[in-house]
């Protein structure tokens, strides 16, 4: 026979309070986790499922068959998708590297107490506030072979330009899109790196100068190591952003001439929102997700392997 002990509601109260106190952090964070799962994990998992089906909205509104890895094979065999992958990697790696280098140079200039620096700082942020599609239209005019400013400047410098225009030649079109990105986002690096450099203690710099360290040595041995974490994170962020380049490509070249400026973002747009091939675009999305995550994971591993967090 079991003995049954009955507790009064009052006796249960301390237990409940203890349970609440112990699990309060989980209760507080739960809404965020649920939102995160609903808005990120669920669509990604659903896209993963869709990638194994033949599902084209032009043919029918429903998924028609399980096709295994066919969509992945089709995506990787398509020469335009492979070109898009290559172009995207070129843009992302070069873009992030050049924007960081130029941004750092501008940030170092901003540190100097030169006249008019306040105005320069205010103007610097302007390009990043413009929507990429507007920037695309702006540069469509600037690159115009019949009198665009960029074309005119390059011609004035006696640089050889293709007859088809900067955007019309496979040899210059991708560089032109890269230049647009650099124009728009270098100031972002400059502002963030400038803020980080301001936090570098003056005493350390002064001490180095007293030890007759050169400006280069101060930069490489003191300033850069002290802003390293910020630099690593913003380079990573920009890499991921450039990886999704779409708006400027749509406005400037629609991926052409040929496949010379096709990016993954543009390919996803075309397969998903023009051809409505949900299965194929889901596979392409997952290929892109995997690639970007592998690159970022490797980058983070090597960049932070000696760091303590």
């Amino acid at each position: 026979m079991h003995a049954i002990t009955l507790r009064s509601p009052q006796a249960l109260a301390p237990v409940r309070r203890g349970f609440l106190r112990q699990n309060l952090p989980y209760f507080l964070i739960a809404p965020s986790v649920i939102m995160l799962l609903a808005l990120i994990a669920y669509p990604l998992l659903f896209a993963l499922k869709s990638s194994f089906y033949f599902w084209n909205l032009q043919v029918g509104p429903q998924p028609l068959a399980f096709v295994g890895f066919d969509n992945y094979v089709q995506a990787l065999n398509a020469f335009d998708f492979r070109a898009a992958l290559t172009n995207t990697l070129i843009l992302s790696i070069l873009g992030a590297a050049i924007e960081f280098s130029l941004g750092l140079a501008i940030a170092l200039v901003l540190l100097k107490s030169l006249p008019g620096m306040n105005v320069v700082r205010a103007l610097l942020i302007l390009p990043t506030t413009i929507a990429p599609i507007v920037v695309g239209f702006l540069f469509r005019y600037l690159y115009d072979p019949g009198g665009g400013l960029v074309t005119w400047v390059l011609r004035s410098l006696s640089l050889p330009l293709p007859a088809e225009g900067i955007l019309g030649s496979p040899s210059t079109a991708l560089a032109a899109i890269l230049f647009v990105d650099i124009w728009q986002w270098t100031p972002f690096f400059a502002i963030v790196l400038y803020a980080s450099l301001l936090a570098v203690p003056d005493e350390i710099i002064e001490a180095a100068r007293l030890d007759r360290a050169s400006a280069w040595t101060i930069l490489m041995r003191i300033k850069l190591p002290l802003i390293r974490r910020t630099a690593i994170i913003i380079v990573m962020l920009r890499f991921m952003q450039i990886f999704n380049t779409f708006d400027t490509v749509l406005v400037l070249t629609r991926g052409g001439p040929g496949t010379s400026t096709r990016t993954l973002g543009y390919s996803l747009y075309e397969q998903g929102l023009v051809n409505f091939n949900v299965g194929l675009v889901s596979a392409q999305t997952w290929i892109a997700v995997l690639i970007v995550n592998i690159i970022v994971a490797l980058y983070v591993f090597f960049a932070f392997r000696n760091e303590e967090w």
Partner: protein
Amino acid sequence: MTFDIVNMSRRNMLKSASVAALLASSAGALVAPRRASAQDAKTVRVLSVEDPFFFSMKAMIPEFEKETGIKVELESLSYDALQTRLVSAFVAKTSDADVIAVDQMWLGQYLDNGWIISLNDYIAKDSDINLADFIPEVLYSSNMWRGQIATLPVAAYAQGVMYRKDIFDSFGIAAPPTKASEDWTWTKYIETLKSLEGKFFGGKPLFPTVICGSQPSPITHMFTQLSASHGANWFKSFPGAPWDFSPQITGPAWAKSVDVYRQLYKLSPPEAINYVWFDAGTRFAKGDIGMFYWWTPYFYLVKNSGYMTGKKSDVMDKYATAALPKAKGVAQTISLGGWSLGVPSSSDRQDNGYAFIKWATSKATQKKMAQWPDLNFQFSDFARKSLYEDADVKAIYPYLDVQYDMMKQGNGKITRPPVPGYTAVESVLGLTLNQLLTGSEDPKTALERTNSLFESILKGNLMIPYQKESYADTLDGAKALIGKLGKA
């Protein structure tokens, strides 16, 4: 090979909407459809592309509201955004429109999927729509699918030639003919252009012509006029039954068309490689192009210095129109396209939707749209025969005889077949053509590769072998349907 059709539950619908949202966030281009709010029955929501007809139609809407007491909520979108919005909304069953603008190539997809309704019953019961006034070739090309009239044309486009009278006179070049003839061939067209090569006019260098080079749709729209003129077909058997979508783009007509198109590009401004529809069209308005062919809306659009700017162009009083050249020994086929209006099956105000369509496509409204003076008179895309003979309208648009002749030689079902899956193959064709303009690849090799890609896509999309019922889609059948519905 058989497939299990998965029944689409509400949950799956929501899932598909989530996928669409995911894809959109990747591409950053989806304009989310607005849910229909509780609107009274005396309202009609119209979703349209912003082609020239939109502006004059919008100006007439107060008259519709006054006549019917129905309030119009009109919204416009760009070409790409419109189809994205419509398909996403149809799949998620969240369409908020009672009337939608439908491009010619989308018709088969929209009707086969049940996204828009057939207007047969509405038309049969309507004693004053005067169906017989519509040009049969237009209704056949843009509005009919499987014996149903699913839309009515609000702006019908053909393709024709525009040239500079003053330049031709100045160099003693014979004007191209206004009527199609065996002598007016693409070879003759190229010869005429070459006589302008290297010339200066008014102190400025001339380009003999201009083409559209941007992929995928713009270049395909211009190129397929050439290929249709040369007798090229996309598929083994379509629109005649039995439907067989085995691609046929390796034939000599395709190779010849590519060759002619490349010649035209060499005679164009080199930057035309990136030109979309209105870049090519409005380039002529800048004054340094001798002659080009394009959609008939440019017969009036070139009066403006830019696309719908309202600012008169330099060529406004210096250009004329002409018949489209043909290939020797091949019966001419003109590319017909344009915009039509349809009623989504999800609309709960379909009567209002039909009332709006009937009004917008009526002779009276179309004439008023043509007479709307703003922006230098920007509408002459008539689908009704009577308007091509209307003296008031002809006084504003003197080229209507040329345009009407083009319309009567039209067949949009051959030039750009409105079959489900069209945009997927168009993407491949557009990319190939764009590559061929600047590359040195042999057209035959490129077309063979493209044919193979077509086949792969069409097999993947269950179009080869075709698994649904075929339909003998002929112009004679269309005329019979027009007669039957018109008399009902």
